[in-house]
């Protein structure tokens, strides 16, 4: 007997359409509840609020598409953020160079994750659990657990805004959208991108068709590390400080965004744009519920319910194929 849910053809496509439907539904609901919700300015604000988790989510999506997972992303980002701000403030090197050092450090962490996964054959969960702690500790030691303040303007420039009509949009939001466009193109149109899907779907089959699976994985983890560096730039720009306590829950936040966006935790299926939708869904609920005056615990409650619904939809549509 077919399970109940699978009798409806729509349910089988919910993995791809579901996130957008949920987002639209949430927007309609909040628009009816608060006169302040439906404005360009408010949407710009939401984009600005999800840009850090959004860009981290790009790396997380890449890794989850290969059937891996990255627990270290938030801590690696925080390390990158503290490194770029502390270098710029303490040593007086130029802002671009400081940013470059931060990007290099997070990319290096990504490559280390990748090497441990491919060369030592460790499971990604364990590898990144280890590097999570390592990145956190290095960050605390390096910063002395002190927040870095009085940053040069160049480091916070991405947090500035430009006006489009009467809407102020932050440069950081634009950078996030560009990063999504680039990674979407990479995954859809280039060989390494297609190979990442293949490796996630069935690594053995991918290997037999001549794909250098290990090289693909290393590339994916390294690129993810780079995206954490970009997220570090955005985090510094958004909060105006280098905060060694940052990034502690971002690993789960990105996994939430990836899952809400309809990407399968089993690998091989999903889209990076879904992750953007997933991150925005969380942002919309947080913003909308605050505008309604509802306590923030309900946002956490609703996120939990949505995650379970999203994974259920993924399971059902998997069997449907």
């Amino acid at each position, binding site marked *: 007997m077919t399970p109940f849910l699978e009798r409806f053809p729509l349910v089988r496509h919910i993995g791809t359409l579901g996130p957008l439907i949920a987002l639209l539904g949430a927007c309609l609901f909040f628009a009816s509840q608060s006169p*302040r919700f439906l404005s360009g300015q408010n949407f710009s*604000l939401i984009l600005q*609020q999800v840009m850090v988790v959004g860009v981290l989510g790009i790396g997380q999506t890449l890794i989850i598409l290969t059937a891996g997972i990255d627990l270290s992303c938030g801590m690696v980002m925080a390390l990158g953020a503290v490194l770029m701000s502390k270098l710029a403030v303490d040593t007086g090197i130029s802002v671009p160079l400081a940013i470059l050092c931060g990007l290099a450090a997070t990319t290096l962490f990504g490559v280390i994750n990748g090497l441990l996964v491919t060369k030592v054959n460790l499971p990604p969960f364990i590898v990144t659990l280890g590097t999570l702690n390592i990145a956190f500790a290095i960050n605390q030691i390096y910063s002395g*657990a002190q927040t870095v303040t009085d940053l040069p303007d160049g480091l916070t420039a991405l947090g500035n805004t430009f006006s489009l009509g009467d809407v102020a949009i932050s440069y950081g939001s634009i950078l996030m959208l560009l990063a999504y466009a680039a990674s979407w193109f990479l995954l859809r149109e280039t060989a390494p991108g297609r190979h990442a899907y293949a490796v996630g779907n069935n690594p053995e089959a991918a290997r037999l068709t001549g794909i250098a699976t290990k090289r693909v994985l290393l590339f994916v983890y390294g690129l993810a590390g780079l995206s954490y560096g970009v997220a570090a730039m955005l985090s510094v720009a958004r*909060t105006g400080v280098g*905060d060694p*306590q940052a990034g502690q829950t971002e690993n789960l936040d990105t996994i939430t965004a990836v899952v809400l966006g309809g990407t399968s935790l089993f690998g091989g299926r999903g889209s990076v744009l879904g992750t953007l939708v997933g991150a925005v869904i969380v942002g919309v609920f947080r*913003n909308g519920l*605050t505008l309604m*005056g509802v306590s923030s615990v309900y946002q956490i409650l609703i996120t939990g319910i949505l995650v379970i619904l999203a994974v259920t939809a993924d399971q059902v549509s998997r069997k449907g194929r």
Partner: protein
Amino acid sequence: MNSRISLVALAATLSLTAAAADQPIIGLITKTDTNPFFVKMKEGAAAEAKKLGAKLMSAAGKQDGDNAGQVTAIENMMAAGAKTILITPSDAKAIVPTIKKARDAGVLVIALDSPTDPVEAVDALFATDNYKAGQLIGQYAKTALGGKPARIVTLDLFPGHPVGAQRHNGFMSGFGLKAADAKSNDLSTAPEIVCAADSYGDQSKGQAAMESCLQKSPDVNLVYTINEPAAAGAYKALKSAGKEKGVVIVSVDGGCQGIRDTAAGKIQATSQQYPLKMAAMGVAAGVEYAKTGKKASGYVDTGVTLIAGKPLAGVESKDTKVGMELCWGKK
């Protein structure tokens, strides 16, 4: 027909918005949603807002130290039209640039419970005098030890937090040890302090820290704790080691569970603070600002009382019955 309906709807929306606009919106941002201290604070704010006809919005970080969550909350509350924001900063330094943005936009920002770093980053601070809270239990502990050489363990908050430093240094000053003044964010040390560890104000972390300190210095006779959950953890560790009898534990907070522990003799004395009052005063200041445009400023001490299980000669204290009446949390 349709356009008429939408016109009516539009008019209704507009009049609704107009009615709501008269009501001052006040935002309250706490460190977390789960700590009873902040739950009590929210209750106090909600009751005062209802009394004064203001609309209260509340939000919180996900955990202590979650700065990004508080940044988001400030932005959302400004978008919602809040003209006053009350905040208990999770990260005293990191929140400052965002508070500056809010103040530049004309929002009155008041820190509750813990200060920003620098203190002047907000318009006003309504909080316990944490240094004094430390001094009160320091004096009590000195008398309780009665001239015995002190072997002190301090279970502190976490590095760099002003509240943690003020209570710690205040305790030392009250005990008669040389310590930094209330402005310092660094924990002072003295030979009498045989072990200092971070408890994060958490019971299980406090217990683990105490266990390690007992390994290091088994002859400890005085434990200072940042708050009562940490004190409960310390007591548990001492009890497992069979040392709970000879050790004085002092703490700060005055939560109902802490007062019960004081009455039961697990904690000897605690400095009680008043979150409900901080929040109510904050809401009143917000309503005042909405009505008259006058901003609250400076530091307002919301008071602290020493609650002791056993009164000691020469140390002014109240008993646990008084403490229970004024405590926060589940009575």
